[in-house]
């Protein structure tokens, strides 16, 4: 079994029009910039994939990464907790013009809904958002004298994530806070595609250190020197 693939182009080829795509990262930590930019290049060259629903904590920053996806016009809707950033123009402009959808989800609920999808839990109850506008229309139940909101799992067709090490079986480690949503998204997507800083042979990652076991991963491509979003923004890079 070898889940490595040779090119970014092959990695993003599975994304189709209208798919829900989870993208790892919180701020620049864990953002799979190279996978995202490859997907944008494909859209610009071929017109597909379009009408994507993108799941990420944020909605892009500056003119690169998810912001550049939005700028390109390939995103129909964002599912996120915090569609703001130091430079949120890409989302803000389209949103205020009514050209992109938004499902706003509290951060912990977003994480738990994604985990639930990966764990085969179709619904769960959380105290979060009870009594607020974000609970509108959702079932409410009382347990032990306290009120809770029923939330549903959040699945994706594809997850694009960034890892530190990957072995050929898809076992992954992450770098520091770049872990964030990525292990959850890997569980929740029909297909999980990973860019890893280094691909190693099975057995080279201590079984105690594996954060995402290979069962949750479908394809791994090596990006040895990944760009960091914060650096690109500092340099004023636009995709």
């Amino acid at each position, binding site marked *: *079994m070898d889940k490595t693939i040779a090119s970014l182009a092959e990695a993003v080829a599975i994304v189709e029009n209208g798919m829900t795509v989870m993208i790892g990262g919180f701020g620049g930590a864990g953002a799979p910039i190279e996978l995202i930019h490859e997907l944008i290049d494909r859209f610009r060259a071929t017109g597909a994939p379009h009408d994507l629903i993108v799941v990420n904590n944020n909605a892009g920053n500056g003119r690169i990464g998810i912001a550049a996806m939005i700028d390109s016009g390939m995103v129909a809707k964002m599912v996120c907790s915090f569609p703001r950033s130091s430079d949120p123009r890409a989302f803000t402009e389209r949103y205020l013009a009514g050209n992109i959808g938004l499902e706003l989800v509290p951060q912990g609920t977003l994480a738990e809904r994604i985990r639930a999808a990966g764990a085969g839990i179709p619904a769960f109850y959380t105290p979060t958002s009870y009594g607020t506008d974000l609970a509108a229309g959702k079932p409410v139940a009382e347990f032990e004298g306290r009120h809770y909101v029923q939330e549903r799992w959040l699945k994706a067709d594809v997850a694009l994530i960034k890892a530190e090490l990957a072995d050929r079986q898809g076992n992954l480690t992450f770098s520091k806070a770049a872990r964030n949503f990525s292990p959850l998204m890997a*569980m929740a997507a029909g297909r999980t595609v990973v860019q890893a800083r280094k691909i190693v042979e*099975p*057995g080279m990652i201590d079984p105690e250190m594996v954060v995402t076991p290979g*069962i949750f991963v479908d394809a791994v491509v090596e990006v040895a020197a990944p760009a960091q979003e914060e650096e690109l923004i500092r340099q004023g890079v636009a995709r």
Partner: protein
Amino acid sequence: MIAKLTSTQIAWRAAQDIEDGAYVNLGIGFPEMVARFQPAGRQAIFHTENGILNFGEAPKKGEEDWDLINAGKKAVTLNPGAAFFHHADSFAMVRGGHLDVAILGAYEVAETGDLANWSTGPKGVPAVGGAMDLVHGAKRVAVITDHVTKEGCPKLVKNCSLPLTGVRCVTRIYTSLAVIDIVALRFVLREKLPSMSFDELQSLTGAELLVDGEIGLLTVPEL
């Protein structure tokens, strides 16, 4: 008395359907035997409920590490690419549909795919383990079992009489006499022992066996 497959041979037959790279959970006891018969050139990755992916064979006697055991509490070893995780992650793999195949034992399987394999009734101490999770977890839930009980009664039945493990969950049954799929809530015979007639097999089966195309020959090596 008709010749029938041994447990080892049933396990061998089940192993032939496991694809290279498949993630597989084998129930404790008899189903564990399936791991011995991976066809050449294929390598499945075995999952155990207690938090290991890609464990390997049993260690030599005296070399056991009792922190390295499977769900049956038997000592195992690790293959390259193994990973440890806690029980919630382990059953996220199960319940979340990430396993390709789960192979379980059975007291009874109904033509609807209902399975009974955890309780023989209200007597004694009930124990369920991970069986009720596994039947809803894997993309393919298969059963390996003798075709009939020790008393000669059908284990493949119209409706289970024993407490259920899961409803409409089994998709394939490997027995000592046949390979049977469950399609649209009916038994469909895929393979049978060459020495046995369809009518003989039907007489040992508690619900109607349908045929859809050719019936394959269930041929298994001496083991």
